[in-house]
């Protein structure tokens, strides 16, 4: 793909009829907003990643960066506000109401669309989490505006419009999408796609309150209960520093133990390629890639994984990718940093043993001194 000219813009065929001029009623839409996702008292870290991106966009546009916090009254909302400022927000909009205790589409959509209608942002960013995706679709449809989902890159164009880049066709291509004549320009971004910005303790700035104009009896959907993942053994791959994963090259279900052993020796999470989930050898929450988790570890070790594009897009953010594959031509070697052409089934135990030796208490003491 080296011959690709990345710079040539490609006018979209047939869109010539679209007016380039922004309609008047959208001209006073200003500032960049980031939805601060607060669920069950915790701010989702994708919100911080988005504040980092939002900051850059706001600076380029010379506008303000605002956080939007929706939630029930209490300590959590105060904490979320403080964190928003710490990660770069200039101001924060809040809607504080008991109705917003658990995420439900109806009140959240209402709160968000009312805020947008009143304060008119030009850009609205949300995390592509289950909550963010549920909310973004309803908000965009209510506001009748464009939404670019699952972006991997955000930028502003010379004319000030949001250029949102996202993978398409399973990651084989990227496309840059604009929302030309509608406001706000909405985009969602997956967790771990953008780097985590630096946190800086800053005083809490301007906080703008907004009332929720919907009451409980207008809301049909009720939350009957919640079962947190901590009560089930769910993987936390997205945030692991080290991830070891196995693919079809391991041949048999029992060989996944070799991956788990190495992960245990490293204090790492383990994951897999999609076929392993399809075969029922691992649970779906451990799948890495386009239709699984995006990971951004410091070290990613892939054993017996060919490196299909759908897998690649989920791991490219890793700082160091080490691939073990029997086939010297496996596509994974095109994007891994270190490659070992060998039989993973034989090599994994040796690697586990060598790591254990290297990281033994004896060596640890030497390191500490």
């Amino acid at each position, binding site marked *: 793909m080296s011959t690709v000219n990345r710079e040539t813009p490609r006018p979209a065929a047939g869109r010539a009829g679209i007016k380039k001029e922004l309609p008047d009623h959208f001209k006073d839409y200003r500032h960049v907003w980031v939805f601060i996702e607060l669920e*069950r008292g915790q701010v989702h870290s994708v919100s911080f990643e988005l504040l980092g991106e939002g900051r850059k966009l706001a600076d380029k546009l010379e506008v303000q960066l605002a956080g939007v916090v929706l939630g029930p009254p209490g300590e959590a909302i105060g904490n979320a506000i403080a964190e928003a400022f710490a990660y770069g927000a200039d101001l924060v909009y809040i809607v504080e109401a008991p109705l917003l205790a658990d995420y439900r589409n109806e009140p959240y959509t209402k709160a968000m669309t009312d805020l947008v209608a009143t304060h008119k942002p030009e850009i609205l960013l949300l995390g592509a989490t289950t909550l963010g*995706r549920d909310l973004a679709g309803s908000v965009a449809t209510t506001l009748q505006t*464009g939404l670019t989902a699952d972006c991997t890159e955000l930028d502003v164009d010379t004319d000030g419009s949001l250029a949102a880049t996202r993978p398409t066709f399973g990651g084989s291509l990227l496309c840059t999408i604009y929302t030309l004549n509608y406001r706000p320009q909405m985009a969602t971004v997956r967790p771990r796609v953008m780097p985590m910005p630096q946190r800086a303790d800053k005083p809490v700035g301007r906080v703008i309150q907004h009332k929720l104009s919907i009451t409980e009896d207008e809301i049909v959907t009720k939350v009957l209960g919640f079962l947190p993942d901590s009560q089930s053994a769910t993987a936390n791959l997205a945030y692991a520093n080290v991830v070891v994963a196995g693919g079809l090259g391991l041949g048999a279900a029992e060989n996944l133990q070799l991956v788990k052993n190495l992960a245990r020796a490293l204090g790492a999470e383990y994951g897999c390629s999609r076929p392993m989930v399809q075969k029922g050898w691992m649970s779906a929450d451990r799948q890495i890639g386009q239709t699984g988790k995006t990971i951004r570890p410091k070290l990613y070790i892939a054993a017996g994984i060919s490196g299909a594009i759908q897998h690649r897009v989920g791991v490219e953010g890793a700082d160091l990718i080490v691939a073990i594959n029997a086939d010297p031509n496996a596509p994974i070697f*095109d994007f891994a940093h270190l490659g070992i052409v060998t039989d993973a089934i034989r090599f994994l135990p040796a*690697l586990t043993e*060598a790591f254990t030796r290297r*990281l033994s208490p004896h060596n640890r003491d030497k390191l500490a001194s």
Partner: protein
Amino acid sequence: MHIVICIKQVPDSAQIRVHPVTNTIMRQGVPTIINPYDLFALEEALRLRDTYGGEVTVLTMGPPMAEDALRKALGYGADRAVLLTDRYFAGSDTLATSFALSQAIAKVGETFGAADIVFTGKQTIDGDTAQVGPGIAKRLDLLQLTYVAKIASIDLAAREIKVERRSEGGTQMLQSRLPCLITMLEGTNEIRRGSIEDALCAARSNVLKWSAADAGIEDLTRCGLRGSPTVVKRVFAPAARAEKAVQIDTAEKTLRDIADEVIAAIFTRQPALEHELAFNSGA
């Protein structure tokens, strides 16, 4: 109970190739499949019909060849298939797609009885936005239940539905009302194989083909390219990484030596990591 399920025919992305010069998708020889996520929704719809009685209508918006996908859905046991196809729909983004589909669902409702549940998949593998479902819900004013992992119960008389919904960090138990729109989570079930009788019946039943006008769509400016607020300005291939992986030489070495060499190479590149691993790992 009348259930409408939206499915999309998509190119099998595992087989997609990109023209190295023009950066266009080379479709030749790329098979099309039913969006894999939609099969979970379809199976759930069929199960509900089998339990509560009623009918399942499959709906797709797409080119004429999307009929193949619908025919397949009929083979799984769906009762009726509608293909929404018209040149006015070309180039639709999620907003325009959800507009056209919601109009068609309304028309299906008028013609064959109002839908109690509309199903969509969680997302498609080509568009991959997960927005069409919520878009339809909003337009038809249906209660929106996304990422549903399980339909716990339906009380048809009370028009009440209870579901388990996957949310960030856990599972929500929700109670809501019919009519609603459900986007079904993957891995929740497995699509059935129709019996030989189902298959025969499907092979002989007709797919209804609706134009925009047939679906009762009057405002064509809300369809296709014209109805899409988003504009694709540029399509390009991901930048290839400049260098390939550095290969650790394995010839005539013991596994132990190779392993040591790999570890040395890792820590040379990521010096801080050794410290971190030594103190945090279980070793």
